[in-house]
């Protein structure tokens, strides 16, 4: 009848199964959306600090190597690029190492969570905790499709949906019900499945030992609320290689920071800027070429702002430049604090003498990372980004004044010599990484294990049915 016609009016070529992971299958019904999503393969756009080009962050800013000493990110870290690369990039990153087979490698299976529509399929088949269990390498042949339709859509009616348990559970923890989300909120929440800060909790009651994916939102989404959350848990992601501080890593709190900005305040959603309407042959559809809006100002910004493209880009760059100015200074001070702390240890400092200092370093770097890790943050919410960096500057100052006093007590009352970290290579050498070995392991993985995964996957998928619909189906 007509009512449902209004809801869903198209002639499906195929009928899409509940957790269909293959984007090209969905693409047969929705060619425009699918074709545009393929454009996330384009890597030609580069902006002041974003864009789809592969950007080696460690090379652009070798301070990062020091800040993440002892942690995977010091080996390799690139700026995110198009969704189509999610699988390729997680294969290639040195962070996932060079596993030789099941049960091998540094990373847990949880790492797959935000990379593919195979994830809801697997979670449905195996169970959530089971999905998170085991090594990253264990599920290599199962997760092969890059981010796609099943991550965000209900195949029955193409409505937006949430497929990642972490977000649902985070809403629960905050006492909210995600099912109450409005349509417009959903246009940001689908992104909040992935563009959010997270950690792996191995101590969840009943799931001990499983690196369960959790968004630390229970006390709220501000930098202070999450800091308290982690402090209360006495959680740390790793112990710093130089300062031995119990560190936290902030991963892309994109949604959290965005929510504090004026666009969120005015009801603008992620999709408004990153997936605006597009016209093709007189037809309008949602542009699934998710990318930097600066490559698409007329659709992304000028719907609302009657302002010249040049000027809008200038506005964005200006906010980013101002944030970068403070951020780089803050990083310099954090680097100093790690090296000064190391000097203290070298000179024989005791745990008791170091305790407060290391807590300060933990907090200062957490705040820095929160403000830096979501690459869009300095535009999405420039004032909050600046506030967070301001608070980090205050805390790192505390640390460094204490360090100066302690160093003096330990007989070193002068500036600590800083290593040459002018390039990524020098910095990595300084923190003692064996890059050659890391690269060799990765190559071996790509030569031996990876092709097997892809073969297995192909065989598996070839057996999955595609059901052609014979006539226009009315649902």
């Amino acid at each position, binding site marked *: 009848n007509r009512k449902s016609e209004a809801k869903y*009016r198209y002639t499906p070529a195929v009928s899409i199964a509940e957790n269909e992971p293959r984007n090209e299958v969905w693409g047969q019904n929705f060619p425009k959306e699918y074709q545009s999503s393929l454009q996330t393969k384009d890597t030609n756009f580069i902006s002041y600090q974003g864009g789809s080009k592969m950007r080696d962050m460690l090379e652009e800013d070798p301070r990062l190597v020091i800040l993440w000493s002892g942690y995977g990110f010091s080996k390799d870290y690139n700026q995110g690029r198009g969704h189509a690369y999610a699988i390729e990039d997680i294969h290639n990153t040195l962070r996932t190492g060079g596993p030789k087979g099941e049960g091998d490698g540094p990373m847990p299976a949880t790492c797959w969570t935000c990379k593919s529509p195979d994830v809801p399929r697997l979670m449905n088949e195996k169970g959530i905790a089971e999905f998170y269990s085991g090594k990253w390498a264990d599920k290599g042949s199962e997760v092969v499709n890059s981010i796609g339709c099943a991550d965000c859509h209900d195949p029955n009616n193409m*409505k937006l949906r949430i497929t990642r348990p972490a977000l649902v559970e985070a809403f629960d923890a905050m006492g909210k019900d995600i099912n109450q989300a409005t349509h*417009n909120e959903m246009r940001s929440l689908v992104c909040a499945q992935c563009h959010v800060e997270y950690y792996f909790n191995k101590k969840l009651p009943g799931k001990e030992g499983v690196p369960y994916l959790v968004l630390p939102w229970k006390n709220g989404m501000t930098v202070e609320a999450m800091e308290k959350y982690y402090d209360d848990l006495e959680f740390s992601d790793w112990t710093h290689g130089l300062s031995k501080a119990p560190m936290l890593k902030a991963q892309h709190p994109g949604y959290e920071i965005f929510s504090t900005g004026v666009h969120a305040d005015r009801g603008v959603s992620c999709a408004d800027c990153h997936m605006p309407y597009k*016209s093709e042959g007189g*037809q309008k559809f949602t542009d699934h070429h998710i990318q930097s809006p600066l490559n698409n100002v007329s659709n992304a910004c000028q719907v609302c702002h009657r302002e010249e493209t040049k000027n809008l880009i200038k506005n964005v760059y200006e906010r980013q430049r101002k944030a970068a100015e403070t951020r780089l200074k803050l990083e310099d001070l954090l680097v100093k604090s790690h090296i000064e702390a190391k000097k203290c240890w070298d000179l024989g400092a005791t745990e008791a003498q170091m305790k407060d200092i290391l807590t300060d370093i933990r907090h200062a770097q957490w705040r820095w990372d929160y403000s830096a890790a979501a690459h869009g943050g300095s535009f999405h919410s420039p004032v909050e980004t600046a506030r967070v960096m301001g608070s980090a500057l205050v805390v790192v100052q505390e640390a460094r004044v204490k360090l100066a006093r302690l160093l003096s007590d330990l007989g070193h009352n002068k500036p600590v010599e800083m290593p040459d970290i002018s390039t990524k290579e020098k910095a990595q050498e300084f923190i003692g990484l064996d890059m050659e070995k890391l690269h060799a392991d990765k190559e071996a993985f790509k030569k031996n294990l990876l092709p097997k995964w892809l073969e297995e996957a192909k065989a598996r998928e070839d057996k999955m049915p595609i059901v052609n619909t014979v006539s226009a189906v009315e649902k």
Partner: protein
Amino acid sequence: MPKLKDIKILPPKGSHWREKAVFYIAVICGLGLFMAKESRVTSYLTDDPQACVNCHVMTPVYNSWMHSSHREWANCNDCHVPHDNVFNKYYFKAKDGLYHASVFTMRAEPDVIEMKEASQEVVQQNCIRCHVQQVTQAKYDGWIEGHSENRLGRQCWSCHKQVPHGKVHGLSTIQNNIAPLPTDSDEMVIPSWLAEAVNKE
């Protein structure tokens, strides 16, 4: 029904209206039950834009509005219904709604819907209602160049073609017409397998 196109919206005068009213009442009686069920008449009396999407012909305009700069500030009725006084608002709505309903129910909807002259007048007044200071005050020249001259004589959307439905019009302009319905709030945004799995925890 060519005659309907002649209707002017302004307060009813003379017997012209009575004639039409009789016709509308007939429409209501005849289609009342059907309408109430099929198009959620009561929701049509609200300001909720989702009410308009009860008709699929309204989905393209709904969707274009949903992606427009006005989504957060102006709903359909803010533009398409007179706001000079309460009487006019509901009078216009009733008339308009019943008109659309009858056209729709008779499957007479055209491919490209166009605003009737009366509607245009209403919309123009509504643009001005919200933006009067911006478009009439010379002092905001520094901000909006060129509105200092009196632009009230032209239809705003002759320049602001994008506001709010975009440049391209027509039933087929928006593919895969998917728009939220009033009933959507009853539904879950997570798949049932996930709901079960999470509840189990």
